[in-house]
């Protein structure tokens, strides 16, 4: 071994790797709560246990594959040497295809220069925060919700956290938000919502829009307006008779203040393909493009071209979604009915009617119950563990989405489960609940 001494010195310095100083931002950043839970679940699976792992906010490609045509197009584009830098705002083909998709299916009119393509929805969210929010600005979001706390933190902004309630399907209401809007720069909304699988009603969203419009009239042009980030990444997965609404279609005056988060990650079950986009006022989209250029968070060029080609035939898209939504809905409805049956049998469980996305909101009201071994379930952590150990069901407590530590509500995700798993999991839960006294 050459230079052995030199490397030894380096590794001596590196033995205290954990003590290396990093930025304050990095020092205090927190990982995902869900990922922590997933570690325990995976360990149990490795030990050979049959666990109904309903924690993952992702699709199992065996159950929910991406469209076959999209898969083929991606491969084709690589063979056609689409391997260089994409355009900074996204390939024109894709921006045109998205513009058309929004017009034909989304009720929105955005031109190709009002659309920015990125490597999934996350960079879009990051760019929105970076573009609109200064350090110490106020960001309003409700909990439970997905990752708003982290993006707020990354910007050094001040979070105002609203507790959404089961009575309102865990969607925030105008009256909950109103006391805080005078100071706020950004209001982060998400519908269909992760983690709840619920959506805004037309009236509820209209009330919020009217409030934002009034606030912006009050501010006048000198001041930074109150913006709305509207995350509609799940909008294609609205189930049954439910209908997706967005601020701009309901109130055209919202166009200047709304920036959308969107993409194919959920609609085409393509979480690993990494194609997302944003729509908004051209000035804001341009600034977001400048931010993302320095991050390099583009969607790969071949994936962009393939997605453009796929979206050029909306018949394909519609047909795919019919099957996809049927599969999701069968699972969600199966779990919902199962939970409501258990509830009617007198067990301390509950669920909220699923409306969209791949999530069901469920409740375990089991504090104070005694296990067969005589242990009392004292708190949410005990209940979560009991459900995992006895019912073999893994779900994510709402505290992982910013709710209170002792919230009794959970997210159940159906993206990785088979239809057979649904009834088997409910039976397993029934057996575990029966053992409690």
């Amino acid at each position: 071994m050459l230079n052995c001494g030199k490397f030894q010195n380096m590794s001596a310095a590196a033995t205290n790797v954990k003590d290396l100083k990093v930025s304050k931002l990095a020092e205090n950043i927190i990982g995902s709560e869900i990922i922590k839970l997933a570690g325990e679940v995976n360990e149990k699976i490795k030990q050979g246990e049959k666990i109904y792992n309903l924690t993952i906010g992702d699709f199992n490609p065996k159950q929910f594959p991406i469209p076959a045509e999209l898969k083929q197009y991606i491969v084709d584009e690589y063979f056609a040497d689409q391997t260089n830098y994409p355009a900074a705002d996204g390939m024109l083909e894709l921006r045109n295809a998205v513009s058309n998709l929004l017009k034909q299916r989304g009720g929105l009119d955005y031109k190709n220069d009002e659309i920015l393509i990125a490597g999934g929805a996350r960079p879009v969210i990051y760019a929105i925060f970076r573009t609109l929010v200064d350090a110490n600005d106020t960001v309003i979001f409700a909990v439970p919700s997905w990752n708003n706390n982290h993006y707020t933190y990354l910007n050094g902004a001040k979070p105002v956290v609203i507790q959404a309630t089961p009575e309102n399907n865990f969607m925030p209401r105008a009256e909950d938000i109103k006391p805080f809007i005078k100071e706020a720069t950004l209001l982060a909304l998400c519908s269909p919502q992760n983690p709840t699988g619920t959506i805004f009603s037309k009236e509820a969203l209209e009330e919020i829009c009217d409030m934002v419009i009034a606030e912006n009239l009050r501010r006048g042009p000198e001041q930074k307006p109150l913006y709305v980030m509207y995350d509609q990444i799940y909008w294609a997965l609205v189930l049954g008779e439910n209908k997706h609404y967005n601020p701009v279609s309901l109130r055209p005056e919202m166009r200047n203040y709304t920036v959308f988060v969107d993409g194919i990650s959920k609609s085409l079950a393509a979480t690993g393909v990494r194609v997302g986009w944003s729509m908004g006022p051209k000035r804001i989209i341009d600034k977001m493009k400048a931010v993302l250029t320095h991050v390099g968070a583009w969607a790969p060029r071949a994936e962009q071209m393939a997605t453009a080609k796929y979206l050029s035939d909306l018949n394909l898209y519609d047909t795919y979604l019919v099957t996809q939504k049927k599969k999701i809905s069968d699972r969600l409805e199966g779990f919902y009915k199962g939970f409501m049956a258990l509830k009617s049998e007198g067990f301390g469980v509950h669920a909220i009617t699923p409306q969209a996305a791949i999530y069901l909101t469920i409740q375990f009201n089991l504090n104070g119950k005694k296990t067969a071994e005589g242990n009392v379930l004292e708190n949410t952590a005990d209940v979560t563990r009991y459900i995992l150990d006895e019912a073999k069901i893994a779900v994510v407590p709402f505290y992982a989405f910013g709710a209170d530590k002792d919230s009794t509500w959970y997210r159940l995700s159906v993206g990785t489960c088979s239809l057979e798993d649904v009834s088997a999991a409910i039976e397993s839960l029934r057996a575990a609940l029966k053992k409690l006294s």
Partner: protein
Amino acid sequence: MSNETVIKLDNVSVFQEHSAVVNNINLEVKKGEFVYMIGKTGSGKSSLLKTLYGELPLKQGEATVAGFNLKNVKRKEIPFLRRKLGIVFQDFQLLSDRSVYENLRFVMKATGWKDEAAIKKQIDSVLKKTGLENKGQKMPYELSGGEQQRVSVARALVNSPEIILADEPTGNLDPETSSEIMSLLLDIAKSGTAILFATHDFILYNKFPSRTLKFENGKVEQLG
């Protein structure tokens, strides 16, 4: 070394989905034997290991592993099969939010251990065996790669397995650390645990010669 057979395969073919990736394997492994599995990426080493620990179903042939007949094994029995096996992977897969001790304790609780005193005794014993006496209270990120892999070996030992299945366990480690892990596993084999060791690492392979299964063209050839 006793003559007790812990793995016996008769005409086993290993399947991924519907296609066979390795055909007609005949193999007998005895208590305390150390057996290499070598062959190119994609030659089926991991798939065979997965079949042995019940992750892939046995579709063709007869296989007995640690007393379990894989042909008739029920889904419910898989956890009991796994308790007779220790599995070590290339990535250490430790729970990053808790100490070494708590990592081992978690697995023991999940595999039916209840008595905390017995748990402590067993953890102390496996930490000693793997040279980690003083590391129980460390968090995974406070350990080097070699130490983390020792923890995953310790974790594989908590249920005193008859067999260790190691799938490229040194794939993430530098040569020197790899040799240390290798010596540790050879010691474990000497004390009676059979070890199947899939690897790419020819330096290691040449340094510690042992019985070898070579995976090539959908077949397994026995060397040495």
